[in-house]
């Protein structure tokens, strides 16, 4: 008699550093052998196929939960890990600025000058490292200005998301259900102290003098006259922004570029015809999904799914980066192909907790690539080194050196 436990013994050997270096082989095997499986090092069930991820994201038998390391990093109530009235209030707080008609009103004026400024800084150098000099700065500066953090430098914002990231994805658990590396959270604790030291005075000011910044709107919108939301109530969601929303458009820009560099003909097509940029970004987000495995759901009742019994209260980590490589949906998914049939992907999640910033993020990435190709249409990847990707929770290239004739 075979048992699932015996067949899946290899799951015990998975390590965090293996997943962070390259999660694809493990998840390819999971999709084939156990699309819904308990992965010991994560201390959690994991959903790895497109069908399961979509079903779980939209099922009434699941609701959101933050991963343990995520909860330890952000605290409560973070928008990605709450449900019911609190979730409705937080979505109602962040969504007005992110509606397409609203984003259309300001996104070009916000992002294009920032993108131009960063590209002008290196366009005559003949070489650049696009992750640190372009993708990340354009991403953090745009959102930083939108939030009202105009006086916080782009390098500080990049430093904050990197430290929050390492804490959020410090996911390894012991067999006893304890954090395997509790000291891995301490640096983000210090980062949060820095964040509060910078943001508290702004909040103090916006409480008495509302401004047209996102955080000021979060304090005031929908509140009775003279009342504001408590800052401790919105800080976890500020951290959500300072990590994911700051970091991921940068990851998306860089991953799309790496994908295009790997397909020189497609690179030429996109440079020659900027109208193809949105399609290239959609494929880049599928090919290397920035939020690879950072969100989770929990059962609200006993559930039988994919041959597995999940008692009420069982968390499942959603592996969208894996779902977007599901061979049931995508032919040769490891290949970046701008021209593949434009099927929907799960890079922005699905259901009630689908990313609130989809429209904004897509435009940030589009404008960044438009300005880059406009200024430097002759760039080439510096092929003296391979591009390295890193990350299991969040994933993207660690560096992208390019050269061009000035």
């Amino acid at each position, binding site marked *: 008699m075979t048992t699932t436990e015996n067949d899946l013994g290899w799951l015990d050997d998975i390590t965090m550093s293996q997943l962070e270096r390259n999660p694809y082989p493990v998840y390819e095997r999971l999709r084939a052998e156990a699309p819904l499986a308990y992965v010991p090092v994560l201390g959690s069930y994991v959903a790895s196929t497109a069908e399961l991820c979509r079903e779980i994201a939209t099922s009434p038998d699941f609701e959101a939960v933050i991963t343990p390391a995520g909860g330890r990093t952000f605290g409560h109530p973070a928008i990605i890990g709450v449900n019911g009235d609190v979730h409705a209030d937080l979505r109602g707080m962040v969504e007005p600025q992110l509606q397409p008609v609203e984003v259309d009103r300001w996104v070009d004026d916000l992002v294009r000058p920032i993108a131009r400024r960063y590209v002008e800084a290196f366009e005559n150098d003949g070489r650049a490292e696009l992750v640190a000099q372009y993708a990340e700065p354009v991403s953090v500066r745009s959102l930083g200005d939108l939030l009202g953090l105009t006086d916080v430098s782009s390098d500080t914002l990049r430093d904050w998301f990197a430290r929050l990231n390492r804490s959020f994805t410090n996911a390894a658990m012991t067999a006893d259900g304890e954090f395997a590396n509790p000291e891995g959270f301490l640096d983000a604790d210090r980062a949060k102290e820095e964040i509060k030291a910078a943001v508290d005075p702004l909040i103090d000011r916006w409480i008495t003098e509302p401004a047209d910044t996102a955080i000021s709107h979060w304090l005031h919108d929908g509140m009775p006259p003279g009342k504001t939301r408590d800052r401790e109530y919105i800080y976890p969601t500020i951290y959500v922004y300072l990590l994911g929303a700051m970091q991921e458009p940068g990851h998306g820009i860089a991953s799309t570029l790496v994908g295009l560099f790997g397909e020189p003909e497609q690179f030429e097509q996109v*440079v020659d015809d900027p109208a193809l940029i949105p399609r290239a970004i959609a494929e880049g987000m599928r090919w290397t999904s920035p939020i690879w495995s950072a969100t989770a759901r929990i059962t609200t009742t006993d559930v039988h799914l994919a041959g597995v019994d999940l008692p009420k209260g069982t968390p499942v980590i959603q592996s969208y980066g894996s779902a977007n490589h599901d061979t049931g949906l995508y032919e040769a998914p490891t290949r970046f192909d701008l021209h593949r049939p434009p099927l929907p992907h799960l890079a922005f999640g699905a259901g009630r907790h689908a990313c609130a910033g989809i429209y904004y993020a897509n435009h940030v990435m589009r404008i960044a690539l438009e300005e880059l190709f406009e*200024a430097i249409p002759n760039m080439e990847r510096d092929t003296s080194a391979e591009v390295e990707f890193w990350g299991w929770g969040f994933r993207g290239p660690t560096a992208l050196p390019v050269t061009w004739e000035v």
Partner: protein
Amino acid sequence: MTSTAPTFGAALGDRTVPCGPDQPLLDAFLRAGVWMPNSCNQGTCGTCKLRVVRGDVDHRDSPADTLTAAERAAGLALACQARPRSDLTLALDGPAAAAGRTAHPLRDLVGTVVELADIARDTRRLRIALPEPLAFDAGQYVELTVPGSGVRRQYSLANTADVDKVLELHVRLVPGGAATAGWIFDSLGVDDEIEVTGPFGDFVLDDAEGPMVMIGGGTGLAPLVGLARTALARDPGREIHLYHGVRGAADLYDGDAMAELAARYSGFRFVPVLSHEPDPDHRSGLPTDAFVEDVPSARGWSGWLCGPPAMVDAGVKAFKRRRMAPRLIHRENFTPAC
């Protein structure tokens, strides 16, 4: 083109135009004065791709690599190839949505040959007087119908838009070509009637104001002459570099006219370049290489390319190498006629 009874209505934006069952959608819209992006008019460039929101089309000769099976399944069609099978509602995606603006209507006219002159090796200038003016923009092209065969060939206009009653075309002999060896270089003579359909194409001036570089291969010079004269009329101080690439000095023409232009406009520069038969009086090599040698940076410039596909491809690469913004690179996409 032979007229067919308009039997279907094709709607784009707030305009609905009649379209015959054997009439390409593009032809129907342009004929009614409704602009939509179009370029090669032979199904190979994909510029006129649109979405069939409602109704059914026959894709006819749409090539599989311009319009993939997946695109067909997703409801896309090439306007220059597709014929209606029912009333249609159409939409343009993306930045092409500027379409629907009024353009010069597509016309069928019968003109008269008033000049047919040998101007260079295997090259003729053909002037056609029209019975009435044809509205067009400099850089566009027309189609001529070879008598008796129904074969249609595309030739760029060398005219500026104010010279609208006598069209000027530059024609290169193609050995065995139905329109050239079989007609324009054979039986055609002055005073002959000639069927002209036009204007077509998107190879026209834009709003950019910086310096311009134009590279024409052989008779690809024709539309560039019209574009350069038009740009100089708008802004006499405009910096324009016009490269004419040919095999040998015997292929050069209009040198005097270009010299006159250069004498009149200090920003205009004409550079003939010989690829195969060098002589001491001219630059040698490829015109695209000459540009790269001459211009250290084309940031902020616009570029114009008309000639054989290999030259156009090399031109795009050369322009980008000198960092011209790709959106400012313009190409005539139709393959030179034979």
